[in-house]
C-alpha cells in the first residue's frame, strides 16, 4: 500500500487565515511526504464549499482514497462522497481526521496532529497507533470535587475496596445537588437521596475525605502522580469537634451563607448546612474577627471541648501519591447581574434559580415558604418566612446560555429545572400564576417530556418567547416578551422573577486544567479525548473527568459519567497497569506502529 500513491488529502479549515500559518505549512509538508500520498488539496487553491471546484480538483488528482483533515472535516465529507461516487469511486474510502479535539494541547498539538494524519493515511484509526505505554499503578485514587459526581466516583472505587482520597474545596461535600429542593422529573427530594450517599462517603473506611483542601500542583506520570494539596486551615479540630454549635451561637460575626446561595446569613464559625459531611464546624477566615485583628476568640472560650478550636491554625501543604485522578469539579452558575436588562441585583425580587431553589427548600431560609425578599435591620436583603407571598411568578429561561453575548452553548438542565420550579410554585401556592418564557423546550430525558406535559396541565403559562427586559412599574415587575406562538406582545406584571441561570466552568477551571495538564474546549469545559467514544477520559493518562466539569448535564448523566470514570480507574487497579498519556506518545512510536501493521 505504501508503494502506490493513491491517497489524496484534503485540508479543511473554516478559517481561511489558518492556511497561511506556519503550523499549517508544517502539517502540509508532513502530509505530503507521507507514504502513499498522491496529492494535497486545501482551501488555498480550492473553494472547498463549492462543489464544482471540489469535483474538478478531485477529478484532476484522481485519488482512490481521500483523507479529509482539519477542523470539522465532516462538514465537507458528503460533498467529497458525492464526487467520489459520481466518478465511480468508493465513497467508503474517505477518512476523517478532526484535530479540533486536540484543542488546548499546546505543546503536543503538532505532534499529535501529524500522528493522526499518518494513521489515517495508513488506513488506521489514531487510537490504533497512539498506543500509550503501560505503567504500574499506585493503588490510591484522587477524586477532586465532592459534588454528586465526586461522591459517586469515590464510592464506586472505594466500594471495590480501593483507597480513595476525596478532595473538596469547601467545608462539606454535597456540591450543588445538596442545595436543590426536588429533582426533576420524579420530584424526589434531593436531600433524601443525596444525604445517605454523603454519610456513606463520610463513614467509608476506604475514603479519606479532605475538605477545605485544594489541589495545587500535580507532577509525575500516569499511575504515579504526586499531588500537592493545600489544606486550608479549618481552625476546628475535625476529630474532636462534636458539632454542638455553641461556638456559632456565641460568634458575633455573620456572613452570607454560601449554601443558601447568599440569601441568608450564617456565623463566621459555621456548619455549611445541617446535613453537612463532615458535620463539623469551620471558620471562615474572611469574616472572623480574630483572624482579622487578633481580638475576639469567643468561640474558643465557649467551646466545651478543650483545644478543639485553634484560631491560629495555618494552611498546610501536603503531598500525596496517587495512581489515578478523577476530576469532578462541577460548575458555577452564571452571574445573572451580567444580563442587566433583567434587573438582577437591582430589583430584590428578581432571583436566580439557585436562590429560588433555596427559597423553596423546606430546609431553606423560609422553611419552604415562597416569600418576597425583605430587608433586615442591617439593610441586607434576605428572605423571611413571614413575608408576603407572590401571586404571579415569571421564569425566564436561557439566562446566560444560548446567548452569543455570554455563553453560546446550551446549559442543558435549565428547561427542566425551570419546569420543576414552576411546579413547586404551583404546589406551594396553588393560586399563584406562573409564567414561563422559553426559546426551545429541551425536555429530552426519560420521563422529561411527560413531565413537561404535566406542568402544562397544571396550568403553568408556558410561553415561547425570550423575555427582553424586566422593569419596575408601579412597584410591580414588568416582563416584556413576544408570545410568538400566539402572535402577541406581552407585558406581564409579576411579583417575582426567577432567572434560569446557566452553568459555566468554575473560575479556577483554567488553573486546574493547567496543573493537571488536561485541555479545555472552547467554552472552557474540560475536554475529553474523543467526543464520540471517550466521554470521560483525557489525553493525560490516569486522569478522568466526570460530571458537569466536562459539560452541562443532568444528575443521572453525571452519575453515569462518574461511574464511567471510576470504571477506567478500576480497570487499571484490577489489572495492575495503567495506560500512559496519549499526548506523550511520540510521533516515532506512531510511525513504528504503522510500519509494523
Amino acid at each position: 500500500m505504501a508503494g502506490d500513491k493513491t491517497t489524496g488529502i484534503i485540508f479543511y479549515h473554516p478559517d481561511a487565515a489558518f492556511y497561511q500559518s506556519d503550523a499549517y505549512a508544517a502539517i502540509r509538508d508532513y502530509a505530503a511526504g507521507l507514504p502513499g500520498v498522491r496529492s494535497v488539496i486545501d482551501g488555498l487553491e480550492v473553494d472547498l464549499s463549492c462543489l464544482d471546484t471540489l469535483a474538478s480538483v478531485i477529478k484532476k488528482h484522481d485519488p482512490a482514497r481521500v483523507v479529509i483533515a482539519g477542523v470539522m472535516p465532516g462538514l465537507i465529507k458528503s460533498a467529497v462522497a458525492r464526487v467520489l461516487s459520481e466518478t465511480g469511486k468508493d465513497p467508503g474510502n474517505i477518512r476523517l481526521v478532526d484535530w479540533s479535539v486536540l484543542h488546548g494541547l499546546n505543546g503536543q498539538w503538532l505532534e499529535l496532529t501529524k500522528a493522526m494524519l499518518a494513521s489515517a493515511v495508513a488506513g488506521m484509526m489514531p487510537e490504533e497507533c497512539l498506543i500509550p505505554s503501560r505503567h504500574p499503578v499506585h493503588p490510591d485514587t484522587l477524586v477532586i470535587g465532592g459534588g454528586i459526581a465526586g461522591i459517586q466516583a469515590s464510592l464506586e472505587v472505594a466500594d471495590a475496596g480501593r483507597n480513595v482520597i476525596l478532595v473538596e474545596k469547601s467545608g462539606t461535600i454535597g456540591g450543588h445537588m445538596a442545595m436543590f429542593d426536588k429533582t426533576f422529573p420524579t420530584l424526589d427530594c434531593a436531600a433524601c437521596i443525596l444525604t445517605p450517599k454523603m454519610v456513606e462517603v463520610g463513614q467509608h473506611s476506604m475514603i479519606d475525605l479532605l475538605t477545605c483542601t485544594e489541589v495545587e500542583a500535580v507532577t509525575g506520570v500516569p499511575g504515579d502522580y504526586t499531588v500537592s494539596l493545600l489544606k486550608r486551615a479549618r481552625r476546628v479540630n475535625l476529630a474532636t469537634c462534636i458539632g454542638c454549635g455553641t461556638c456559632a451561637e456565641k460568634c458575633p460575626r455573620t456572613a452570607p451563607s454560601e449554601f443558601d446561595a447568599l440569601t441568608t446569613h450564617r456565623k463566621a464559625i459555621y456548619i455549611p448546612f445541617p446535613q453537612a459531611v463532615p458535620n463539623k464546624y469551620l471558620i471562615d477566615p474572611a469574616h472572623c474577627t480574630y483572624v482579622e485583628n487578633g481580638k475576639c476568640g469567643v468561640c474558643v472560650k465557649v467551646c466545651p471541648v478543650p483545644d478543639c478550636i485553634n484560631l491560629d491554625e495555618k494552611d498546610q501543604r501536603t503531598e500525596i501519591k496517587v495512581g489515578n485522578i478523577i476530576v469532578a469539579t462541577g460548575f458555577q452558575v452564571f452571574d445573572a447581574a451580567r444580563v442587566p436588562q433583567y434587573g438582577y441585583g437591582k430589583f430584590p425580587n428578581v432571583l436566580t434559580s439557585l436562590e429560588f431553589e433555596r427559597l423553596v427548600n423546606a430546609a431553606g431560609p423560609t422553611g419552604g415558604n415562597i416569600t418576597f425578599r425583605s430587608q433586615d435591620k442591617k439593610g441586607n436583603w434576605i428572605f423571611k418566612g413571614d413575608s408576603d407571598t407572590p401571586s404571579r411568578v415569571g421564569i425566564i429561561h436561557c439566562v446566560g446560555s444560548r446567548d452569543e453575548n455570554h455563553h453560546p452553548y446550551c446549559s442543558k438542565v435549565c428547561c427542566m429545572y425551570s419546569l420543576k420550579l414552576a411546579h413547586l410554585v404551583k404546589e406551594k401556592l396553588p393560586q399563584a400564576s406562573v409564567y414561563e418564557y422559553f426559546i426551545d423546550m429541551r425536555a429530552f430525558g426519560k420521563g422529561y417530556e411527560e413531565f413537561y406535559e404535566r406542568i402544562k396541565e397544571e396550568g403553568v403559562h408556558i410561553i415561547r418567547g425570550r423575555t427582553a427586559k424586566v422593569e419596575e412599574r408601579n412597584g410591580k415587575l414588568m416582563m416584556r416578551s413576544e408570545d410568538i406562538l400566539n402572535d402577541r406582545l406581552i407585558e406581564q406584571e409579576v411579583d417575582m422573577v426567577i432567572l434560569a441561570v446557566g452553568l459555566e466552568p468554575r473560575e479556577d477551571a483554567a488553573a486546574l486544567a493547567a496543573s493537571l495538564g488536561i485541555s479545555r474546549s472552547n467554552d472552557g469545559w474540560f475536554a475529553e479525548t474523543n467526543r464520540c467514544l471517550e466521554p470521560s477520559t483525557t489525553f493525560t493518562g490516569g486522569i478522568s473527568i466526570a460530571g458537569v466539569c466536562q459539560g452541562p448535564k443532568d444528575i443521572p448523566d453525571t452519575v453515569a459519567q462518574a461511574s464511567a470514570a471510576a470504571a477506567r480507574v478500576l480497570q487499571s487497579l484490577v489489572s495492575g497497569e495503567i495506560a500512559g498519556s496519549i499526548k506523550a506518545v511520540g510521533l516515532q512510536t506512531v510511525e513504528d506502529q504503522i510500519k509494523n501493521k
Partner: protein
Amino acid sequence: MEEVKIGVYVCWCGTNIAKMVDVEEVAKEIGKYPNVVIARDYKYMCSDPGQELIINDIKKLGLNRVVVSACSPRIHELTFRKALEKAGLNPYLFEMANIREQDSWVHTDRVEATRKAKDLVRAALHKVLFHEPLSERTVEINPATLVIGGGIAGMSAALEIAGAGKKVYLVEKMESLGGMMARLDLTFPGLESARDNLQLTVARVMKDPNIEVYTNTVIRDIFGYVGNFECIISPNFKEDISLQFGNVVVATGLKTFDPSVIPEYKYGQLPDIYTSHEFEGMLTSGRIVRKDGRPPENVAIIHCVGSRNRNYHEYCSRVCCMTALKYANQLRSALPEANIFEIYADMRAMGKGCEELYSLSSRRKIMFLMFDQQGPLPVIRKAGSRDKCDYLITLQEKLSGQDIEVPADMVILMVGTEAREDAKEVAHQVGISMCGNAFFIEKHPKLDPVATTTNGVYIVGSCQGPKDIPDSISQARAAAARILGTIAQGSVTVEVTTANVNEELCCGCQTCIKVCPYTAISFKEEEKVSFVNEILCKGCGTCGSACPTGAITCRHFTDRQLINQIEGLMRMDVEPELKEV
C-alpha cells in the same frame, strides 16, 4: 439460654444533651431495671475513651447487649457497632436511643425532655432484649460477565471489563456487531465518522482475548442470582451452550418507529419519502438522489416523527433533532444549491457542542420551519405539474403564524425510537421491569441509572431510554465500574437485616410475592411455601407486615422487637421489669 446482661450508656454530648436532659437521672433510673448490669453516663460516648468504656465493660462484665443513648443512629450507630465488634460482641446486639436530634435539640422543657429520654432509653432496652446476633453475609462473585447486545453500549461495557483482564461473554442476536451505530455515516455534533469509530471498537472487541463473542445467538434462559448466574445460549441457532457468570449487562438497544402508521406522511405510499435510517444509507453511499436518479432540489426534514405526540409516543427520542441538523449540514455540502427545510418542533440541541452545531447549521442557509408536533401534523401531498417540485408539504408554521406550503423532492422523516419487541422477553429472563414505554427501569432514576432492582443485572444504553452515543458509552462504563467493583472484591456483601420466611408458618398464600420490589421472594412449588432470596432482599420489611400469617420476620425489626419497643415506650409507671427472653 445465657442470662441477658445489658449495659446502658447515656451520653452528655458535652452540653448538647446534658443541658436539656438530666443524663445522670436517666442513667440512674435505667440502672434499676433487671438485666441492666451497668448504666453509665459519660461526656462523649463517641470519643475514643467513651468507646473504650463500652469495650471494657463488655469484657469485664460480660455484657451481651448494649444500649447507647446519644445522638442520631444515622451518625454513630456504625461507630458503636464497630466498638461492639472490637469487644468481640456481635454488632447487632446493640440499640441506640436518639436523645439529641430528637430530644435535647428540639425541646425547651428540661423535665419533659428528661422524661422523654427515659422513655426512649427504656424502649431501646426493651427492644435490644430481643435482638439477635446477625452476621454479615457475602456472595462469591463469578468474575465472568454476560453482556447482552453487541451495539456500541454492549461493546463498550465488554471492553471496559475485559480491559481489566476479566472474562466477558458478548451475545448478539444479529449476524454482526455494531447495532444501530453501524447504520450511521457521521456522528453529531462533531460530524465524525461513525464507521471509523465503530470499526475501531469492533476490532478491539474481536481482538480482546477476554471477550468471547457470540453473534447470531439467542439466549434461551437465564437463571441464578448475583454472582452466580447461568444461561443457556444457542449460537447460530445450533446446539445449546451453557455459560456461567456473575453479572449481566443488558444492552439490547432499541428500534426505530415505523412511520407508515402516520397517515399525513404517506410513508410507503410516495417514493421519495425516507426514514432517517434509510437516509443514512444514502449518505454513506454518497448518492443522494431521488428514486428516478435525479438529485433533489428541495429536501425537507420532518422532526418528531412518532415522538412527542400522544397518538404515537409521548416521550422525546432525544437524538433526532441533532441527527436532523447533521443531515442538514451533510445535505448542504452534497447539494450546495438545494433548498433544505427543517420542519421541527423544539430544537433540542442540548449536548456539549450541540447548540454550536445548531447555530452553524443556521448560518448555512437552511430554512427552519416550526410546527406543533401535537397539533395537526404537516401533510405531504404530490405536487402538481406546475409546482416545480415533486411534493408539497402543507403546515401551519408557528414562528410566522402562517399557513405555508413547502416544496420538496425528497422528505426525510426523523423517526423516533421505541423499545424493541423482545424487550419484555429479555426483562423476564433477567428479572427486571419495564416502564410504561417498555424501556427498562433503572434502580433509581437519579443516583443509580444503570443498576436495576435485581442485583447483578445492569441496563445500559438505549434499552433504558433513548440516548446518544457518548451517553450510552458512559452508561456502559458505569455498569462496568459496578461490575469491576464487585469482581475486585471477589464477593458482594448483602443486606444483613433481611426478611426471612418461617416455613413452619407459611401457608403459601403468596401475598408476599408481589409486595417485594426486588423480586426477592419466590414461591417454592414443592413445599408450597414462600422463600426469601436474602441476596436480593434489601430489608425494607414491607413483606413482613404484608404477611398474614406472621411467617415472615424482618431481621432487626421483628414484630416482637417493635412491639416490645412500644411497650417500653409506654409503660413508664409500672414497676421496672423486663420480659425474660
